[in-house]
């Protein structure tokens, strides 16, 4: 079962320079909320920003990671 720390590490490793804070919303290891700040998001639509993060987990999202709520932004704001 994934932990919030594990998700944070994986996001930050997969998106170099990203800062992630991840919360396990229920304590059950399947509903998470992540806030991710990265300059990689610069110029991307929200959809593409979120896809970058979802891509880190592939089919785990919707599987063992039942829900991953996201908020993405760039270091300078949105």
């Amino acid at each position, binding site marked *: 079962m994934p932990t919030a720390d594990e998700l944070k590490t994986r996001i930050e490793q997969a998106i170099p320079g990203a800062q992630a804070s991840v919360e396990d*919303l*229920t304590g059950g290891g399947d*509903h998470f*909320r992540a806030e991710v700040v990265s300059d990689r998001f610069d110029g991307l639509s*929200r*959809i593409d920003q*979120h*896809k970058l993060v*979802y891509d880190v987990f592939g*089919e785990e*999202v*919707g599987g063992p990671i039942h*829900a*991953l*709520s*996201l*908020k993405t932004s760039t270091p300078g704001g949105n």
Partner: protein
Amino acid sequence: MTNAEIRAFLEEAIKDNSVMLFMKGTPDQPACGFSLRTSAALNSLGVKYAALDILPDPRIRQELSAISEWPTIPQLFVDGKLVGGCDIVTEMYESGELADLLGVEQPADEPEAPVHGGAGDEQPASSPPLGIENRLS
């Protein structure tokens, strides 16, 4: 129905309906808190939209995610393009972008999508716990 038929049906639905929501359950009876919030945002903008319950057959979700490259439900499409799931739709609702995109007026005094309708089997995990008082301590 074969998988190919399901995919063709979904592609048709996205093409034919300018505002198309794929959700768990129906707008009247959402089966998931995220689907509830997303349909509530559309309801409060008063737009007409088509909604499809993805739960009856697991292949609906598989094929939909293959089309959209988006892993979770709900998914909102406007004019054939994926707008987002619950997070993005809620964010866009609150900022007024969703009203702009759909060409409607933002309701003046409702900063948050009102949540109403039947309770699903699952609420958004961020919502406050149900009114259970802890009297044990």
